[in-house]
């Protein structure tokens, strides 16, 4: 069936099987492969994107459920920051991406797109979190390189930069 949604500001209308998962639609239909699939069982958060500005595990949502929605993936995050006038650094990135780079908040990088998307959604809901709140806010995102410490530091640094 036909499904239409906005992905990173561009409208995409495509014919999908109802059982197509949003993550497969984004990666294979729209062709944006920054969103990763880790566990495929709703646990790891590697597939996190924003649906209507809120973090969602895109392996646990059907593409047809996103009809009419506005989706942001890691590829579009910097652009939203530029539009909001909050892009930072030489690369003109989203402050969270910049903070991840500055704080070495990644090793292999597999969890990173999901971590960044979950962290930006979390800071919107809680702009001045404690360290414990950051850890709870990211509990749906796993990093198998066990880089949590620097990930938390990056989120703290992004929060401080914004306040």
């Amino acid at each position, binding site marked *: *069936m036909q499904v239409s949604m906005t992905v990173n500001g561009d409208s995409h209308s495509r014919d999908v*099987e*109802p*059982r*197509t*998962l949003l993550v*497969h639609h984004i990666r294979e239909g729209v062709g944006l492969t920054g969103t990763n699939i880790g566990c*495929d*069982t*709703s*646990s790891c*958060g590697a597939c*996190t994107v924003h*649906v209507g500005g*809120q*973090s*969602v*595990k895109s392996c*646990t*949502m*059907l593409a*047809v*459920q996103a*009809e009419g929605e506005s989706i942001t993936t890691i590829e579009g995050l910097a652009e939203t920051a530029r539009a909001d006038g909050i892009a930072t650094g030489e690369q003109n990135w989203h402050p969270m991406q910049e903070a991840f780079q500055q704080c070495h908040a990644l090793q292999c990088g597999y969890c990173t797109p999901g971590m960044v998307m*979950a962290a930006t*959604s*979390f800071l919107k*809901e809680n702009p001045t979190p404690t360290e414990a709140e950051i*850890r*709870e*806010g990211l*509990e*749906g*995102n796993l990093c198998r390189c066990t880089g949590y410490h620097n990930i938390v530091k990056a989120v703290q640094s992004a929060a401080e930069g914004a306040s």
Partner: protein
Amino acid sequence: MIPAAFDYTVAENAEHAIQLLGEYGDEAKLLAGGHSLIPMMKFRLAAPTQLIDVARISDLSYIRQENGQVAIGAMTKHAELETNDVIAAACPILGHVASLVGDPSVRHRGTLGGTIAHSDPASDLPAAVLALGGTIVARGPNGQREIAATDFFTGYFESVLAPDEMIVEVKVPANTGGWNYQKFNRRAQDWAIVGVAVADGGKGVALVNMGSTPLRATAVEAALAGGGSVADAAELAAEGAVPPVDNNADASYRTHLAQVLTRRALEAAS
């Protein structure tokens, strides 16, 4: 992992959803937040051939206080319960328990109606509704009926809901009496190995993952009502329960947890 093939229809409103349930019969399933159903379909533990999407029924997403009750539309998301002012003022236990479900991304999608309908004894919110003495409002082809939460759950993933009925609302008494929720797990984001919800200063005590349904700890409630001490009442937490056995815990460990968590919850609530 991809679910087995199915057809997908968006319900315009509750009547439309109920009509579609009638048309498609056993093959159909309602889809709300999808955060229990889609994982089950990916594992092929469920393979409905027709999904009826009810998540877009916006007039089933509300939180209202009326006549000493808080009425919550079935499509209300966990994240909304967590942050809503009416909930915080009138029955804070619900908002707190919602904030402990899964992780933020799960709470952005999962709904109160979905978690009640799913009837998983390991879920958090059904126990809170049970402890509060809530009511489930179900609508079917012949109209609406109200079911006490204590009568709703009948077994693992089973309830008294008829195949052509849907939950439209959950009602709980406004209650700010002493409350607490103890959720015991070993890893972040996990389900409760055992959980205990205490509402109204101990008048309502409900257990998570201590049987095939969420349970009222009636022996504890009776002991407290009869003037028993918290410590003595908590010892009765597992009375009559047949705790499940899984990788996390055997029955004796769950019994012990239920007693300890009930004592902690009662102490914190009193």
